[in-house]
């Protein structure tokens, strides 16, 4: 999955989050910070993470969330990491 594809999916998720201003989604880049650039309440990051799980069919561990940064890049990196982990686990169990 390409990074831009993940960002597009992430933006789709963000459109469903009440506290995210849709106008701020027009110019999202990997450097965009949820807290400082989008004024997302920090408690909302957990809700976003829960929606991201559904959108990308992945499952975050507690430690993934502990280490998650607040930039779009951090979330994209995390999605890639968790997807790879999930595929590796599938491979092992097959």
């Amino acid at each position, binding site marked *: 999955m390409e990074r831009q594809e993940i960002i597009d999916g992430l933006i789709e998720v963000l459109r469903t989050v009440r506290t995210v201003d849709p106008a701020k989604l027009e110019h999202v880049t990997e450097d965009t910070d949820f807290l400082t650039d989008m004024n997302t309440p920090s408690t909302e990051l957990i*809700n976003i*993470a829960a929606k991201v799980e559904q959108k990308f069919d992945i499952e975050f561990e*507690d430690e993934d969330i502990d280490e998650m940064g607040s930039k779009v890049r951090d979330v994209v990196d995390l999605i890639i990491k968790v997807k790879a982990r999930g595929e590796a686990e599938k491979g092992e169990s097959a």
Partner: protein
Amino acid sequence: MRSKFTSPDELPDTLVGEPPEQWLLHGPTKRYVDNYHWHHPKVGIVASYTPTAQNVEDHFDIFRGVDQIESFAQASVVSCGAFSECKKLNVIPERLAELFVPTFISIGNVNFHSYLEKGQTFVNIGFIKFYKWRQIVCDGRIYRAPKGLDLDAYFKDFDEQRLMKYDIGKEFVLIAELFDITGRGIKKEMFEKLL
């Protein structure tokens, strides 16, 4: 207080009847839960507290609103969170406290309807809206309990449906409604970096 648990195998199925000091490891002067009366780990909790003279000192003999919120958070977010994390990680509360710091993350709306004086027992009725990644969000209400009522007996047959509807007798007086009370167990090493 020393832990009564020596092994996770001794952990109970619910918090009902458990001494709060075994699960709320801070205290004792800031511990605002006396008894757990009903608990369903995935649903919520009913816990009571009776403010002491020390709790209302310098405050017109009234238990402060912020302390009501604290009591509710200890009863719901902290107690339910600690219980579920101990079960998940298969550790006793003492060990959990070595790994994580229970932190207050956020408070949503709180509406106060009445007040509590020294010696007036109240119940925190909290239900779990969200619990994942060591973060727990609870809504609920605080009610002043009728004087002398046996709360253990009263809530013995309580259930999820009654909890969600706050289906308790009219003799209970609504004190506060609380929304989105949020806490999180943060890894100790991460918490220390916040300093």
